[in-house]
Structure formats: C-alpha cells, structure tokens
C-alpha cells in the first residue's frame, strides 16, 4: 500500500532520517516510537509528500508518490496533526467538510454535494461529535478540536491514515476511544494507520506493528512483543524501563524505572 525505501531526510547538515525503509499494508496499525528528535515526525511527513526525502523514495500502491497529483494523494492518504488555533471562525461541520475536497470535481463550482454532507455527518457520529457540528472550532477544548481533526481525516475516506501525536491533548477516555476507532477502521475496513506517538503503552495496546527510531535510524520493526523489550527500549529511549504484560490484554506494559535521588 505505502512503502518507504531507503529514505533519508536531511535538514541542511543535520540528518533527521537515515536510510529508513518501511512498509505499510492494509489492516496494519503501525506506531513509530522514539525519543524527541528521533525523526518520527519527519518520516511521517515524508509519507504523504509533505517533505521530499533527500534520498530514497516513497511508493504508493506501487507507484512513486511524486507521480500522483496532490488531490489523488489526498484521496488515498489522510493526515491527522496537532490542531492549530484558527485565524477565522470556522464551524466544526465546515472544518470536517474540508475533508471532502480531494473528491471534488470541476463540476459544481466546488460546492459540497449531498453525499459529502452525509459522509460528514456520519463521521461526526462516529467520533461522537454530532452535537458539535454548528460549534466554532475556537470555542472547543484542545481535546475536542483534536477529535474534529480526526473526523476530517476520516471524512476523506482515505485508505491510509497518518497521525502525528493524535492523543497528546486527550484525556484517557478519549485517547482510548480515538485509537479504538482507528483500530476498527483498520480491522473492519482494511485501512492502514501510521501513528507517531510518545505514549508507548498506547502503542503497545493498539498497534500491531512497532517501529523504533533513534536519531533517525531504524533500530527495530516488528510486532509489539518482539520490539518492546527492555533492552531495545532502554537503548532507544535512553532511560531504563521495565516491561511486563498488561494484566488484561497481555500487551507489553512499559514502566520507566526511575533512579530516585535521595
């Protein structure tokens, strides 16, 4: 579906991503994990063409990403980033309808169709935002805005979702419901998701593939049990951790082992 081959991303002299290869298939929920500055966001941004790799290439459905028109990419790949404060008042519904843009043809002067509205409302229901459609984005809390951003990404009906720290501003309940929703889309609708996150436990709980980055290098990739080991994590995160099994789900549970100063 989506593949990165030997991708290098340099910002001037600084090497942000070094020779990383990654493959994303339908049904995969991949979490990219690493310390700050490990290159996670840069890699994610390269996956939809927002950043051009200095070397290496990204392939979408077998063809180079650069061979697609921007709108064609927008139909296949949707992005969820940190929500930003808006300069002008925009309602939740209008914001989510923006996700239908990749599907707009030259026909109706760019006005949304009935189908676009249906999809928007459907997505608002899925993300438990149906009562918010007329609210203004700037009136919502950070967490609520984040859900709207997800709703917009789902409205594009793209098969691949790229999420950059989607749960950063959410409370525990919403973190769980957001990732559960993404997980459902992957399982039931054969979508793929790539999530950059600091929260390793969430990654362990929801993702079926983990990619560990350190200083731009890919240290390990595989399923959570393979990759989330004390050894690998301590090296990548530069902090000692303990890994046991979550009592209910059996997924790896990571606890930092702080060295307390007395």
């Amino acid at each position, binding site marked *: 579906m989506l593949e990165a081959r030997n991708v290098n991303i340099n910002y001037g002299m600084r090497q942000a991503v070094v020779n990383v290869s990654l493959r994303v298939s339908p049904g995969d929920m991949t979490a990219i994990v690493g310390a700050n500055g490990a290159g996670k966001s840069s890699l994610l941004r390269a996956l939809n063409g*927002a950043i051009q790799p200095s070397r290496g290439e990204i392939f979408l459905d077998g063809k180079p990403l650069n061979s697609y028109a921007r*709108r064609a990419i927008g*139909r296949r790949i949707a992005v969820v980033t940190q929500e930003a404060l808006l*300069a002008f008042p925009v309602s939740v519904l209008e914001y989510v309808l*923006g996700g239908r843009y990749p599907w707009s043809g030259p026909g109706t*002067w760019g006005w949304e169709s009935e189908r676009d*509205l249906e999809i928007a*409302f459907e997505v608002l229901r899925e993300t*438990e935002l149906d*009562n918010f459609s007329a609210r203004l984005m700037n009136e919502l809390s950070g967490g609520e805005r984040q859900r709207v951003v997800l709703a917009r990404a789902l409205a594009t009906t793209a098969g691949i979702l790229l999420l950059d720290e989607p749960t950063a501003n959410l409370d525990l309940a919403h973190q769980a419901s957001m990732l559960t929703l993404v997980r459902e889309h992957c399982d039931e609708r054969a979508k793929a998701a790539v999530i950059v996150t600091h929260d390793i436990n969430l990654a362990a709980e929801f993702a079926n593939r983990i990619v560990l980055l350190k200083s731009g290098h890919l240290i390990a990739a595989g399923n959570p049990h393979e990759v989330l080991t004390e050894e690998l994590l301590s090296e990548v995160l530069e902090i000692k951790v303990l890994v046991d099994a979550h009592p209910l789900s059996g997924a790896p549970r990571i606890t930092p082992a702080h060295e307390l100063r007395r």
Partner: protein
Amino acid sequence: MSSSLNKEAPTISRNAVSLDRSARATLRKTLFVCGALTVMLIFIVIIAATLGSERLPLVDALRALFTGGASSGALTSTQRAILIDIRLPRILLAATVGASLAAAGASYQALLRNALAEPFLLGISNGAAVGTMVALVFFDANEWTRPVMAFAGALGATLLVYRLARGRAGASPERLILAGVIVMTFQSSVIVFITTLMDATRIRSFTFWLLGDLSQAASGSLWIAVVSTIAGVAALTFRARQLNLLMLGERDAFDLGVEVERVRLQVFLAASLLVGVSVALSGSVGYVGLVVPHLVRMSTSGDSRLTIPAAALAGASFVIVADTLARTVIAPRELPVGAITALIGAPLFIYLLKRR
C-alpha cells in the same frame, strides 16, 4: 457500521444545536446574497447618476439610462451629456475599483490568514502607485503602460511583503502587518522622490490622484477596468474553495490535496491585477479591501466562495457611494474619494476591532 464505545462520551456540555446546517454557506445562499447585493448596486447606481453638482430629475434620468441616451425626456442636452458621458463612466469606474479592491482584500485575508490584510495597508496599492508613476514619468505617451507597470508594481510589492513576513514558523499576523507597513512607507518615500522629478503643475494633480481620484474615467481605460475586474474576480472566485482550505493552514490545505504554491501564485497574480488596474486608473483608494470584506463576513459567512463575489458587489456600491459624496459634499469642488473611504473606513474599522 462501526461501533464506537457505547458508553456516554464524557463531554462537558450537551450542545442543544444538533445537525445544524443553517450556518453554512451554500450555493443557494450565495446566489441569494449576491442577488440582493446586485439589486442594491443597481439602486445605488441610479441614485448616484442623478446626484452631483447638477442635480438631474429622476424619471428622465432613468429613461435616458435605460434607452442608452436615445430618449431622454425632459433632460437638456447638457444634462444628457453630463449623465451619459461623464457620470455614467465615472460610476462604472467607481464600481470596478470598489469591486476589485474588495475582492482582492477578501482574498488576501483568506490567503494570508490575517483579518487585517488589505491592499492599502500591505503596501500593495503603493507598489501599484510606484509602477504607475514610473510609467507616467518615463513613458507618458503610452497610456497602456500605466496599468501594466501598476500590475508589476503591485505584484512586486506583494512578493516583497510575503517574503518579508515569512519567518521560520510561517507568516504570523504581526509579522505580516509589520512587513506591510515597512513596504508601504518605503514606497511612499519612493513616490515622494519621484514626485520631486515632476514639475510643479503636475505635482498638484498628481497628489490629488494619489489620494484616489475617479474623475479621469476616459472610455478606453474604462474597458480595461471592466475586463480586468471581471477576469480578476472570476479568477479569485474560482479559487475560493482552495482559499477556504488555505485559511485553515497551509499544511492542512496541502494534506487535503491543495496545490498550495500554485494556488497562492494564482491568487497573487489575480489580486495584483485587480489592485494594479484600480490604482493606475484611480489612485490609491484605501480601506475598501478591509472594511467591505469584514462587513460581508460578519453578516453572512467566512466562506470565500460567498465572501469574494459578495465583497465585489458590496465594494462596488461602497465606492460609488463614497465617490458620490466626494463630488457632492463641497460641490462644485471635489474631495479625493480616498479621503472619503478613509473617513468612513477608519472609524468603521475601529468599531469592528472592538467588537471582536
């Protein structure tokens, strides 16, 4: 269908308005608003045609207008000449200037994500003025050089402001205003400098022109104005949906499939054309691109698909009104229309600021 968690979502308040579509801009709403504004514009044109240092009787003026001057009832031939040859072209010029500046202002505000972005305040009008002046001083014989150089000046100023405003994290509103002020004042000094190269008689008429002067509505340039206004506003309206997305942020727009670079360039070109031609023909009329889009946005919607055409129509009315005031308040002498738009616009702008 997916089954998100069935427990109650922990929202803070249950908003009573559910599935509400009324606030959105739709095609129907846009056509209705534009229709209403067109009707208003027609009324204003008719009334403006009768007002002036020579007041014309309404019914006869109407008959003359609708028959293109063929049948003019009780109007004297002088009155007919005033109406058809002087006032009407001037009103038409005012309409094109108002439409151009308002539509350009609405587009800049959307593109630069800044409610204060306006051709005058950003120094773009001054850039066009510099271009016009250079054409006047060096290529006086060829009238067509003025709109062309004005367009070049406007585009140059636009790109300069844009480059200056773009910090590492994108163009913050403060940086943009600062960049605009810098470019505007710099160009003002260039204008003053070029003025000193002119002889005394030209300086006076030129200064008047600089403040906005619609009395030079020669027929040749009028057609340039009409064509460029229609072309420019159409081009901007065509990009309106992309402008909506750009208003959310360049990154967002890019991810959703907007070709940001291309759209930005097209909008800059179209807006520069509109501002350039307006300034070349009528000097620097300020505040139109600020106040009119704001009024439209506040009363209807922030959706550019609606605000751009609506601002064009409302802007046309606004400048016609301002120009009518300019030529009637101290008749038979005239005030520069730019002074009127500033006198109306600045307090209105302060009021708008306080309402936020």
